[in-house]
């Protein structure tokens, strides 16, 4: 698996080679740097630690800055298991790693919707709007009577919606632009503009 940390720039449309307009999300990549490697002998598992977006050491706390002895301090750091590429600490790479891949999975933090009702959050039907109905957007009953006498766990109710880690699978990679360091991914990607996204080659393709 190949994973890259990027930033969602926004959406637009481009023409594909057939001349059709396709909707795409533009994801920008700054150079991804290998910060460290986890090894089974030492850490109990194998992984690579990748950081992106260079920052100043003075902006980091000392415990965080400690991991950047061999490389420039990075603002965002993530670990990835099963990286299908030989890497050394200090290696840096960009969008060119995605060259030749046709489908990707994209992980990001979805847009926060705040405290949402059940219709928005769980797709409940709601009630009639008019004709004397007094039941509009409520949840309705949440349980039974004396037996069981309690509300079953995980019953769908109103509450905070969004700001979750979401993955969208099998999105077509329309174009990789090494000059601008951007990837054009067909369709929508979780999160708002400027949000951090992880682009992987598709697991199921």
């Amino acid at each position, binding site marked *: 698996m190949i994973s890259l940390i990027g930033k969602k*720039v*926004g959406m*637009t*449309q*481009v*023409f594909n080679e*057939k*001349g059709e*307009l396709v909707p795409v999300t*533009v994801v*920008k990549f700054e150079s991804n740097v290998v910060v460290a490697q986890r090894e089974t002998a030492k850490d109990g598992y194998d992984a690579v630690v990748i950081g992106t977006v260079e920052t100043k050491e003075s902006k980091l706390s000392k415990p965080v800055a400690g991991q950047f002895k061999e490389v420039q301090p990075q603002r965002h750091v993530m670990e990835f298991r099963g990286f299908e590429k030989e890497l050394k600490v200090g290696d840096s790479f960009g969008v060119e790693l995605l060259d030749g891949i046709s489908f990707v999975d994209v992980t990001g933090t979805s847009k926060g919707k705040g405290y949402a009702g059940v219709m928005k959050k769980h797709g409940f039907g709601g009630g009639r709007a008019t004709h004397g109905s007094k039941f509009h957007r409520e949840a309705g009953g949440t349980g039974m009577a004396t037996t069981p006498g309690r509300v079953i766990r995980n019953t769908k109710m109103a509450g905070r919606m969004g700001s979750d880690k979401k993955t969208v699978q099998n999105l077509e990679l329309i174009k990789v*632009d090494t000059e*601008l360091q*951007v990837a*054009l991914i067909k369709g929508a990607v979780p999160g708002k503009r400027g949000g951090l996204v992880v682009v992987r080659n598709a697991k199921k393709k």
Partner: protein
Amino acid sequence: MDIIKAVEAKQLKDNPENFNIGDTVKVYYKIVEGATERVQVYEGLVIAKNNSGISRTFTVRKISFNAVGVERIFPLHSDRIEKIEVSRLGKVRRAKLYYIRERVGKKAKVKELIRKKAQ
């Protein structure tokens, strides 16, 4: 936003918008049929232009056989458009001519714009 503009800029044609709302245009549109490619001419009245940048489109309305109105939306920057020819200039006062859809016959006509020759 600059990155998005840079991405779009690579596919933009220079100055393809050589017509206005109300003009009658001929669109030379490439059609791919299996392996062969041919050019089809679609002629009609430009009733709308929408969006900006690479997403810019224009709507061309024509009256087909049996007085059936046909509207086609073309992406302005599409490579499939070989060229756009203006066959008649129109004199209109609005940017969207959707009212034409409800009109039949002579009422559905747009006045011709007669430009004075520059002296």
